[in-house]
């Protein structure tokens, strides 16, 4: 084992121990508002990172999909003071299953529509669908309305996340580990390999006999499954859901988290989420006041500026910055470029999603019937 790999394992071990013992180490507020929130935001961002890294799709519909899961669950379970929603009085776990199922089915439809578009077109279509979902829940008062659904009941053992955030923290941690393992497993299956082939060269994969839109649709649906887990957790965390929780700023927040973390690695999603929640927390306390332009209430301006700087300087996000520093060090030591660094370099920058040039092929296939 090289010294570098040893350091890597040591860091991983420390992180694992800190995460496991977090309820003993951190205050209840930090545990809840920073760690727990970062974990479920990380799951949402991981679904986006997965779609981009392995499917070449930048989806802005992930927040809308987790909103659909949250609203579906919120409508069927018991709401404590029957505030908003249908309040059908199902048990919380039946609500979870229903919420995820509804979100996955609707996402399959979205995926089937969007999967024949590539690159920037895919981004625009998913953003439009996402905003339509937001306005839908705002307008349909029987299902939500702008007030949303308040005091959604949770499974008993979670208790009250405000007085004791520990159980929800461990649930979010466990869900994160499961999601991470699931996605890492899927990308090694034949399906995952084919998906990466489609990301790199759709016409070639089509001529090899793969059903390109179907693979992209299924990948999108898997991403939606992951996102809907984040949606369930977000409702438990906030104890409520309203259209405000899935508006465009939340859509952009999840995108920012994925980009800050670096779109090239799944674990970047959680790193980006920790960075985001910490920045949120610190900015609300320490932002200097510059008239109306900048004050502690202007978190969106600050995160927008941070996002702008990161996109301009390092498209690979924080991981990219770390990698660049590492490469700099490696170059100083005059090491010949290894295979790993060569592939990493080719991954640098947001690779142009291969699709735009091939969109003609897919459209002619679409019109061929």
């Amino acid at each position, binding site marked *: 084992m090289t010294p570098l790999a040893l350091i890597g394992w040591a860091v991983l071990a420390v992180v694992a121990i800190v995460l496991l013992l977090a309820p003993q180490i951190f205050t209840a507020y930090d545990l809840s508002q920073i760690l727990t929130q970062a974990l479920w935001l990380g799951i949402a961002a991981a679904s986006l990172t997965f779609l981009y890294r392995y499917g070449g799709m930048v989806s802005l519909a992930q927040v809308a999909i987790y909103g659909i899961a949250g609203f579906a669950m919120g409508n069927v379970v018991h709401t404590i003071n029957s505030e908003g929603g249908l309040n059908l009085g199902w048990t919380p776990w039946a609500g979870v299953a229903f919420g995820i199922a509804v979100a996955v089915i609707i996402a399959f439809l979205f995926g089937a529509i969007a999967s024949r578009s590539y690159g920037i*077109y895919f981004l625009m279509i998913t953003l439009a669908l996402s905003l339509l979902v937001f306005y839908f829940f705002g307008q349909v008062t029987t299902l939500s309305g702008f007030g949303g659904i308040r005091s959604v009941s949770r499974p008993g053992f979670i208790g009250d996340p405000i007085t004791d955030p520990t159980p929800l923290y461990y649930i979010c941690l466990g869900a994160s580990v499961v999601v991470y393992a699931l996605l890492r497993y899927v990308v090694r299956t034949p399906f995952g390999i084919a998906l990466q082939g489609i990301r790199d060269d759709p016409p070639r994969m089509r001529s090899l006999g793969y059903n390109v839109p179907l693979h992209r649709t299924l990948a999108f649906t898997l991403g939606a499954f992951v996102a809907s887990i984040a949606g369930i957790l977000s409702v438990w965390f906030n104890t409520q859901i309203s259209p405000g929780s899935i508006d465009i700023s939340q859509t952009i927040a999840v995108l920012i988290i994925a980009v800050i973390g670096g779109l090239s690695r799944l674990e970047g999603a959680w790193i980006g989420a920790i960075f985001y929640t910490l920045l949120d927390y610190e900015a609300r306390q320490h932002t200097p006041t510059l008239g109306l332009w900048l004050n502690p209430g202007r978190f969106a301006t600050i995160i927008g500026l941070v996002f702008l700087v990161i996109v301009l300087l390092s498209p690979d996000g924080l991981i990219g910055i770390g990698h660049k520093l590492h490469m700099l060090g490696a170059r100083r030591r005059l090491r010949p470029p290894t295979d790993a660094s060569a592939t990493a370099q080719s991954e640098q920058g947001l690779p142009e999603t291969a699709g735009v040039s091939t969109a003609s092929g897919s459209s002619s296939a679409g019109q061929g019937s």
Partner: protein
Amino acid sequence: MSVAVRQWPRGLLVAVCTAVVVWLTIKAFQGGLTFLQVTFNGLTVAGLYFIAAAGFTLIFGLMRVVNMAHGSLYLFAGYIAFVAQTHWYAGGTSQFQLGASSTISVTGWIVPLLFATVVIGLFGLAIQQGLLRWNLGQDLRQALITIAVSVIIADQLVAHYGGVVQSIQAPTSWPGSITIGSFRYPFFRIVVVLGAAIAVGVLLYLLIRRTRFGMIIRAGVDDRPMLSALGVNVQLVFAGAFLLGAMLAGFAGVLGGTMISVGPGLDTQFLLDSLIVVIIGGMGSLPGAAIGAALLGLVQSYSDIYLHFGSTDLTPYGILAQFILVIAVLAFRPLGLFGRPA
């Protein structure tokens, strides 16, 4: 798959379209004036969408830049015109205090309109020169940059102008409505907005089809490197197109601010409307933007009014009609009605 099975979605589409047309025809016969009113509501809103989306699609067609800050430019222009009008013509002292003078002359509306349009054009140009020029051809990265800009603008607008919904005053000398036979309709919507939309459409068509600048733009859409190799200063053309696109957003913002209102959330609304218009019309196509805007405006307007079936009121679900519109178009034309491959 047999031909019959492959054809069934097309049959479904034809069936749905026929049902909608029959339904609207029945409604038209039941209440002629209301139907006319609803139709004009849809068309005037469509005019507004067209002006905004024309700028969006122009920028996209030439530069492959999806300007996610387009809605923010729209709203920003509305606020600039509102503040300019309040300060210069309505005698207001602070930004939200309307002055003693409640009459607005025609110049009192035109000057803020031109001022806001030019300022937003220059602002868009600054975004393009300062942030986008260095990332030419990286369309995803450019989209992320404009998203970051839109986040900052939206937050700053809330910081400076608060959450109160305002509206720009049309000149008081203009009539409130016009009457044709027994049909009354707001003057501003039908004459000013619809007229402006038609004028913008004709001028853009002439610009793109009849002038040297338009010729260069069309060539740039097809083959940018070749255009550059022929000695055209492509950067200058891009700057011009972005200026024009941003000005159209600003122009639409002032018209919309007078016709509807100026307030938080409208930036998202108009970004969505512009997106839908160019998605269904075909990105980069001017006729597509016109058709897309008309379809979206009419679908919104009809679904707001006519989704009553007996005693069941489905109008809150009207937004599903927009879903269906987007999905139906994309299912058959993934690049939109007038879209063509890059």
